[in-house]
């Protein structure tokens, strides 16, 4: 099937547990679908070249660069964004709480991507793994404020804390 460049296509995605739909140009990025069409502005764009990782979201449980994917590639799939981490009443997840307790954020711009990337790492390494493994896991997300140390401490703390099961079905 060929689609003209200016033709709109329907994209249906499950975001943070709820199915959402939008009419988008084929060239629309997943990041712009989330930010502009679905008003989920917690996913941030910092380079739009795929290097900084600040736009990371989870697609079927794996982190992806939402600036490097087209929205249409996510059609029919399940996404977890930062807006899906806290409980429905706004209660911070254990990982978010650990970032709060250990000063794992300063300006907060990379934080959503850090949280989602750390969440993926902690699912693969429930005990957190070594500090080296934590650093490697987040090495694809650039942070200019923290120097990373307090982020590593936050993730380590979340690993040793009791972890609640994911409440909204997306991702895990």
């Amino acid at each position, binding site marked *: 099937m060929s689609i003209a460049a200016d033709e709109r296509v329907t994209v249906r995605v499950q975001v943070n547990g709820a199915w959402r739909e939008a009419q988008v140009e084929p060239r629309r990025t997943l990041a712009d679908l989330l930010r502009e069409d679905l008003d989920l502005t917690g996913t*941030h764009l910092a*380079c739009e070249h795929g290097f900084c990782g600040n736009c990371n979201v989870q697609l079927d449980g794996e982190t992806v660069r939402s600036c490097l994917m087209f929205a249409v590639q996510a059609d029919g799939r399940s996404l977890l964004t930062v807006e899906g981490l806290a409980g429905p009443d706004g209660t911070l997840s254990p990982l*978010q709480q650990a970032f709060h307790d250990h000063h794992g954020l300063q*300006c907060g711009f990379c*934080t959503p991507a850090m949280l989602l990337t750390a969440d993926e790492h902690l699912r693969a390494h429930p005990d957190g793994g070594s500090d080296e493994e934590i*650093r490697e896991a987040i090495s694809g997300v650039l942070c*200019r404020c923290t120097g990373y140390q307090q982020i590593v401490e936050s993730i380590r703390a979340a690993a040793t804390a009791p972890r609640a099961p994911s409440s909204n079905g997306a991702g895990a």
Partner: protein
Amino acid sequence: MSVEQGPLGAKIARDTAAAPNGGGRRWIGKALNRVEDPRFLRGQGRYIDDIKLPGMAHAAVVRSPHAHARIVAIETSAAEALPGVVRVLTGKDVAERAAPLPSFGAGQIVQDMIAIEKVRHHGETVAVVIAEDRYIAEDACDLIAVEYEPLPVVLDPFAAREPGAPLVHEALETNTAYERTFTFGEVDQAFADAPRSVQADLRWPRSTGMPMDTNGAIGDFDAASGVVTIYANSMNFTYFLWLIAMSLKVPASKLRIVPVAAGGSFGSKFFMHKVPTFAGFLSMVVRRPVKYVEDRVTHIVANDHAGSDRHYDASLAFGDDGIFTGLRIDCVDDYGAYLQFGTGTHGNALSQVVGPYRIRNVEYSLAAVLTNKNQQGAYRGFGAEVSNWVLERLVDLAARDLGMDRVEIRRRNLIGPDQFPYRTPTGNIYDSGNYQGVLDKILEEVDYDHWVAERDRLRAEGRHVGIGVIASQERSVFSSTEFWFWFDEPEFTPTSSPESAGIQIDPTGEIVVTLHSQSLWGNSPETVVSQIVAEEFDVPPESVVITYADSQHALPGTGPGGSRYTVMVAGALAGATSTLKKKIRRIAADKLEANEDDLEFRDGRVGVIGTPDAELTLGEVALSAYMFRLDLPDDMESGLAAQSTYDHPLTTLPSDDRSDLGIFYPFVGHAWHIAVVEVDPGTGKVSFLRYAAVHDAGTVVNPRTLDGQIIGGTVQGIGTALYEQYVYDDEGRVRNQDFEHYHLPSAMDAPEMTVAHQETPSPYTAYGIKGAGEGGRMLSPGILSAAIEDALHEYGVTVTSLPITAEQIVGWVAEGGKRG
């Protein structure tokens, strides 16, 4: 040594003495969780690009591919014909409708929002498309054809000073925007008398703060009222507001700037002169909201504030005993195409040019040169971080010359704890300190002797291990004289850099603080303010509500920069709380039939000391203040609110002959870092075996957030030391326009470090606080230089330029190996 102290200085010293000092504080000094965090953790940061206004259009710019070219013609019709395009603008529109961008003593150096006749650096804006969405705007940019007549480029600041060099600004008739030599003491004599001296040609490369969130703004012109509202992530929206109004040719009363949280600044959003002005202008032209957010490439090649780009010829004179007697610094600074803050970054360096050392004779020469590169602005350290690197390089060279231990030579020269306030040769003072204490603390913290032995043991195994030891001052809180004392007859001589705060206790008893600067860029203004207000009223910090004024409602504020905000907002809060507490005491004394002096603030109440039952909640007092005028003392006005504007508590004018620059940056922290690194001679990789920092920033309000600033600044300095540099090709194009080619430190590049504090409160500031946001970056470039040099000592390496790339290390090893 006497210190002239203005009336404000004396006043503040008294107020501070009245506050509980050091011990006995309940909230100041506690490592509390930040009140800013939850919204960011939930992805509700509301950064500039997250904001949508009804009917908002989007702008994208056409950037010049040339570093220097005349604009012959611009063909915009194809772009204008593209469906969804609202308007295309070029320099012609700017020339017709707007004035040049704000500049600071730049004379004939004129900068426009869109280049009008010629472009002066790669990436300069030549046209802008406003469209219904950003995709269309960028499509249309590709349809704009610009005909250029390329001009010879000048990229090397030394070549730019030669007669006949291409001129960046013809009207200036030279590329040397400014040059001056300051001499303090008997410098020639000091060098003539000194048995020893070292000299180095040193090179500090241009890099930038590079926040993850780029500079952005939304203009929203309301034709009915004539008010142009600009939402911007600029840090500095009240101090310079009137300058933006002049560029837009609107009365300042018709300009409203609304501060938006910034996803990092590090100086890059200190005073965004391009972006908010631009967004306001675009909105005024098309009479609807317009968003302009830099993309990463634009931020790299053309952001508002690039860092210093300096060439030094520097010398240090000293005796056989290692005592420093003279310092000579000759700097050629490559400012790029425009001179935004110009000499200010060297004025800044002059505030602590002798570091923590007793050097009495100093010569400082600067040539500020224009070339075809993006202009400099501000980057964490504001020029003083470069100066510290230069000084510490010279000190390491002196130690090597003498065969003296690098700690010992520094210790011998430190200003003593009994010498404060210490007047440095330039005239600036260091308010207080105990430098020996910080040094002793870090040596103990690190177990320095152990690491020296460990280095030697590992070296014996053939490993390349080195130790770096660096000291630094951290000046904080600028007066504004550093921007103009360079000139004998400056055009504009500001001496104010105030900060304001308002506090209202509403009829329900809730404490609402209004801040008058956009101070939120990753630091913790709301947490710090909450802790100070909680201390004063004895309420839980999380109960304090923080709001921000927009520019139309703001009192004077200068915003963060030069590690000033915590010190200055604390001063403003001390003033406002003092006024409010007096009123509360009067009301409560009246109601409780007690003496005002017998009242205390306790757990959100005001009550009689020693009588637990005789008390009122702040809500009860507030309700009376707002609603029951006839119950109040006769001469009292309704309401419970106070605001205060705090001025720099200790500043003096420079002398007419500039032999004394006056006091302009007096609250001076102090720090030492020690690092042990291992260098892989095969790959050039640098690994950290140990990294320790001890800082003295006076009274610490929140040690955890201060640690965050120190660690973050240190890693940013590691980027400066090892990776970051704008690479311009022979034609003046930036070669590394993205994060693949401009490498920022990742989690794998950053050390695990320890941070400790010593607290020597300032006698001149509220609560004894000194600023501390820039300290890490003042030290880590020097520490990496020293440690890598030590690790490669067998190859005869002297580090004289940054960044120290892996490629360079491998080259040194190959060359040194041949020599050996």
